[in-house]
């Protein structure tokens, strides 16, 4: 029996207990198998079939997501398409269509904003809402959640799983308890009952490697972690350990980080899986420049600049490596992003082994409304910035593929 079942409310329309006087009510909504569900909504004949969304099935693409029917065969996101085919040869492979999914996502976010002025889009298919002051208008949090589900279904023919709790991360974990189309409410004050029986790997922020490390300390459940001395956690895992110890004890944020209309992107990045493992540095650098250019373009289109540039690599043995560097001044310049990523690549001698995947991202983003002043130490005309301006102009006018850096076009 699921440990959450005995005190979570999953009955539709059942009268809800009101939140405590000083507790907030946070709702986390997670769309079910979002990309696959959008494809099924557009093409109903796909319903009930194993749908796999991702890169080319006959190449070295990667599964972005898949329907629940495909998951029964062991297919999951981030798996190589080739592996997915082996597991589920009858699967229906569909290429990712970013515009299609982002449009559905925007429509869903619009619906959510009708239920609370405080909506935090957390990813393309997830959001947090503060429903403390709006739940009563619908007769309680469960009724509000059911109305949200109904509105999304009517508009997009998509289902969502919802978790509600007084604490943000508990709401997030609750939304995953009953999937798909679930609703789980953790009453304020009963967080420990919900959390403690669950395996430590279920705690938000604990990945497979941390889980192994915790297990070595005899910590198998979230309850074990809650009862483990916090000072030792800090000693072994630093501030992350301290924070996880608090979470295990039901302590966490109760705020929704909403913005007034503008999306609050945490990072922007692009990655590419090569058709074959690549060791030629020129080809790797060509792709790195191509990806840096794409990230730079997105940053400028969104009006962002960032300071932390991260290089991501996956080798043929699927070993993943990331290295980041924070630069002095935030940037949206393709050349700066490229040169920083290149520095990380060459400094760490990452090109000495065949590379399967390469990616670059920019984080620590700031929204740039307008430039306050030119840096006095820099020349007034920054050549690289001017190049980006011209590239933007041409792409706006003639399309994204109208101009590229020559190096990205080279074949070796």
């Amino acid at each position, binding site marked *: 029996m699921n440990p959450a079942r005995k005190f979570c409310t999953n009955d539709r329309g059942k009268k809800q207990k009101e939140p405590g006087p000083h507790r907030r009510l946070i709702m986390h909504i997670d769309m079910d198998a979002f990309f696959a569900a959008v494809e099924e909504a557009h*093409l109903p004949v796909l319903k009930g079939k194993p749908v796999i969304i991702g890169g080319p099935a*006959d190449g070295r693409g990667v599964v972005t997501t898949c329907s629940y029917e495909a998951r029964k065969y062991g297919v999951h996101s981030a798996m190589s398409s080739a592996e997915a085919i082996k597991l589920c040869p009858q699967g229906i492979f*569909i290429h990712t269509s970013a*515009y299609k999914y*982002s449009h559905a996502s925007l429509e869903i976010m619009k619906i959510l904003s009708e239920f609370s002025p405080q909506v935090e889009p957390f990813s393309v298919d997830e959001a947090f809402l503060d429903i403390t002051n709006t739940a009563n208008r619908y007769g309680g949090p469960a009724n509000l959640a059911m109305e949200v589900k109904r509105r999304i279904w009517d508009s997009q023919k998509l289902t969502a799983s919802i978790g509600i709790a007084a604490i943000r991360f508990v709401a997030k974990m609750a939304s995953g308890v009953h999937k798909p189309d679930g609703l789980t409410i953790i009453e304020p004050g009963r967080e420990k009952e919900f959390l403690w029986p669950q395996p430590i790997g279920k705690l938000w922020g604990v990945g497979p490697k941390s889980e192994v490390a915790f297990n070595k300390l005899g910590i198998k459940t979230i309850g074990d972690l809650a009862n483990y001395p916090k000072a030792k956690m800090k000693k072994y895992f630093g501030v992350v350990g301290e924070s996880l110890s608090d979470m295990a004890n039901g302590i966490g944020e109760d705020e929704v980080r909403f913005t007034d209309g503008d999306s609050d992107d945490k990072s922007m990045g692009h990655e590419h899986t090569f058709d074959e493992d690549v060791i030629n540095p020129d080809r790797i650098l060509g792709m790195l420049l191509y990806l840096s250019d794409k990230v730079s373009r997105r940053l400028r289109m969104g009006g962002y600049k960032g300071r932390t540039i991260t290089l991501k690599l996956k080798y043929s043995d699927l070993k993943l490596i990331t290295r980041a560097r924070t630069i002095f001044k935030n940037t949206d310049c393709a050349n700066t992003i490229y040169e920083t990523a290149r520095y990380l690549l060459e400094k760490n001698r990452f090109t000495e082994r065949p590379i399967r995947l390469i990616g670059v991202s920019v984080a620590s983003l700031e929204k740039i409304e307008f430039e306050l002043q030119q840096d006095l130490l820099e020349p007034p005309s920054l050549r690289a910035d001017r190049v980006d301006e011209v590239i933007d102009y041409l792409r706006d*006018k003639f*399309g*994204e593929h109208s101009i590229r850096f020559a190096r990205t076009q080279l074949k070796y």
Partner: protein
Amino acid sequence: MNIWIVTAMYQDIEEQVDVIAVFENGVMKPLRFRWNGRAIKVKRVTGTWKADVGQSKIRYFAVLDPASNFFQLAYDERNTAWVLNKIWVE
């Protein structure tokens, strides 16, 4: 050895087509289109989305005919032209 057997897939068409469309409550909706010498009735629009391609804004429509055959239509706002992008084949 290719173990992948394609049983169902989108097939790219990319042919310009004539479309009869209406604006319903300010929302564009295709009603009929002509393709391969046939007039095809749109029974249901199952999805819409937009994309920017250069200076053009493209409105996409996922539609079903009365026999539930799938078609993806695209309307190029700049060139006021309709294109049948894709069909679903099994």
